[in-house]
């Protein structure tokens, strides 16, 4: 009965929040369901024990990876439940079930693919014991909320140790922390490593946003044969011989990457390796469908501001910001580019914005105009100033609304690349598309 009432309440919440246009109901229904039944998620999954549950975590790329898997499985006729709007805590997961199940708690989708943040991963895999876990990478992110990279890696290890041996675990083998984790678990667990081929690794030295460039075993500085970005690459330790083992890098395959950027290559490789080994889907089928995938929700998403075409790159930490800048510059080699940077410091972003000082803004020196908005717009401007970006290129706003009003009236059709952090992206979409989504 408890389940029934929890679902009823959840579904009513969804109904009313849609009716009054309060959002899409991706966290509240679950929140209320847990108030009625603390074990709501365990109970529902017990009822649907034959369904496959996949958990995806890591600092960057979770949402896109979930979407990619869902998209390709859809093409195979396999239906998926996911926490769509990046609502990646337990209440978001519960909400995604409430949306899709009947009043008895049964749902028809065969697979659940949930993303969860780095901090909550241990808690979640303990409660739901997944059939597959994909860990994409581990960078510094929201240190004030999540803690430091080493602490997280340690908690991940302890959690993964306890899951059933039949669970398949997919790890980014180019990330020293995750390679270390996989090696320790390998005896008992089924581990798969994905990574990149050396030809995609072109960084010359370890950049300063790297967190894990020291040997996780003996603390010696790792030597990199090649570097992809941040601390990802082909590494080894000269002292204790810890090294990157063979990773699946699809070296001899021509892959149709759906979005540009190295981070997208990693996500795509994770997806292909997972779909091939977990669902036995053929490579050619996956590859053929990859090119049809369209990004959404702030991940290289196209949006109109006045007459300008805007492209949103969600940037939440040094690794994603640096990669976004690199991707844009690589794409628009000849043209002058306009940028719109939006920096907030609200709770979902992490209150600490010091990470912007680990982003390489020198690369924006050839930019056309740079517009800046958000709660901490002037600190962002200061950041650019100290990287010697000319002040006359900057237009700084106190709030997002006035920035958008201004941009809507700017003449000229030049493209604009928009780099918001999380709450800034939600706000931007709300102002431009009309709905906040959470």
């Amino acid at each position: 009965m408890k389940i029934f009432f929890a679902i009823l309440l959840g579904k009513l919440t969804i109904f009313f929040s849609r009716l009054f246009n309060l959002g899409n109901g991706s966290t509240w229904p679950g929140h209320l369901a847990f108030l009625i039944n603390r074990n709501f998620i365990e109970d529902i999954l017990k009822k649907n024990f034959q369904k496959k549950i996949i958990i995806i975590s890591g600092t960057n790329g979770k949402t896109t990876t979930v979407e990619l898997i869902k998209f390709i499985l859809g093409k195979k006729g396999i239906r998926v439940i996911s926490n769509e709007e990046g609502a990646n805590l337990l209440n978001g997961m519960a909400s995604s079930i409430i949306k899709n199940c009947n009043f008895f708690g049964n749902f028809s989708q065969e697979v659940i693919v949930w993303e969860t943040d780095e901090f909550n991963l241990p808690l979640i895999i303990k409660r739901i014991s997944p059939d597959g876990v994909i860990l994409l990478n581990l960078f510094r992110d929201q240190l004030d909320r999540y803690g430091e990279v080493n602490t997280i890696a340690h908690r991940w290890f302890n959690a993964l140790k306890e899951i059933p041996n039949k669970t398949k675990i997919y790890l980014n083998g180019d990330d020293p922390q995750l390679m270390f984790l996989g090696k320790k678990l390998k005896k008992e667990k089924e581990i798969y490593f994905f990574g990149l081929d050396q030809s995609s690794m072109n960084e010359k030295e370890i950049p300063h946003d790297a967190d894990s460039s020291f040997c996780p075993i003996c603390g010696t500085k790792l030597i990199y044969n090649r570097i992809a970005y941040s601390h990802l690459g082909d590494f080894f330790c000269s002292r204790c011989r810890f090294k990157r083992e063979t990773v699946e890098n699809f070296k001899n395959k021509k892959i149709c990457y759906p979005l540009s950027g190295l981070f997208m290559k990693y996500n795509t490789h994770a997806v292909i390796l997972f779909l091939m080994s977990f669902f036995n889907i053929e490579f050619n089928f996956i590859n053929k469908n990859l090119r049809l995938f369209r990004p959404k929700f702030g991940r290289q998403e196209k949006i109109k501001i006045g007459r300008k075409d805007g492209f949103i790159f969600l940037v939440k930490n040094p690794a994603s910001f640096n990669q976004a800048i690199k991707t844009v510059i690589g794409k628009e080699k000849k043209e002058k580019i306009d940028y719109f940077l939006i920096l907030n410091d609200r709770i979902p972003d992490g209150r600490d914005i010091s990470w912007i000082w680990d982003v390489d803004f020198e690369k924006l020196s050839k930019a056309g105009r740079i517009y800046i908005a958000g709660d901490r717009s002037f600190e962002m401007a200061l950041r650019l100033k100290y990287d010697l970006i000319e002040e006359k290129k900057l237009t700084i706003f106190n709030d997002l609304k006035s920035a958008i009003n201004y941009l809507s009236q700017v003449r000229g059709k030049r493209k604009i690349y928009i780099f918001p952090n999380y709450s800034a992206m939600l706000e931007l979409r709300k102002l431009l598309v009309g709905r906040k989504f959470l």
Partner: protein
Amino acid sequence: MKLIIGWLYPDLMSTYGDRGNILALKYRSQKRGIEVEIKKISLLEVAEQLKTVDLIFMGGAQDRQQEIVNRDLQKEKGKYLEKLIENKVPSLFVCGAYQFLGDYYLAADGTKIKGLRIFDFYTVNPGLKAKRLIGNIVVKPLIPSIHDKEIIGFENHGGRTYLANSHMAFAKVIKGFGNNGEDLTEGFRYKNIIGTYLHGPILPKNYFLTDYLIKIALEIKYQQDIKLPPLNNEIEERAREQILKNVL
């Protein structure tokens, strides 16, 4: 004029955007025609390199990295550092780097990590159950020449530092936790060395502190009074307003 900045363990002790401190020192020196050289001194560099620097900076890190650095400091570099500090070379030590300078650090699991014992304070991490001290922080500096402006930063530390004497503090807490969340002291100061929990990074957020460090570094090096020409600080001031409005 030329300023040589020694940046200690940039590859290990730089988790919280502390690189911004170097950028601030460099920008505000170069704008005034002062030549700047950044000397990165990490595990592989020899301790003698420290002899040549006019200003020292060292940032914070994760526990694991701090262990590696602590081992290295205990060998030779610590002694050189002590000499520089006695010679009044201005230095800024943030968070983990600050903790090194004291007697010891009592880790969350009860292990006692020996500090460099240059100064009389110690740090205790009360365990994983105790809350980390996290958030925006505003303090009043106790350095006479810059004490009329608040210093802003962001703190994030598990350890609580206790000074033998509260007169040794760098600043007084207005909002936030500071050394331990109890006695309103923040950081530590002796001669021209500053130890502080303030990330943010601290120097870009507080340009007058940056200028203060540049000025005394030049004064010690060239043995003459230095008056730095003023710069346009409009963006710096507006950035301060945005955060102060929310915190105070």
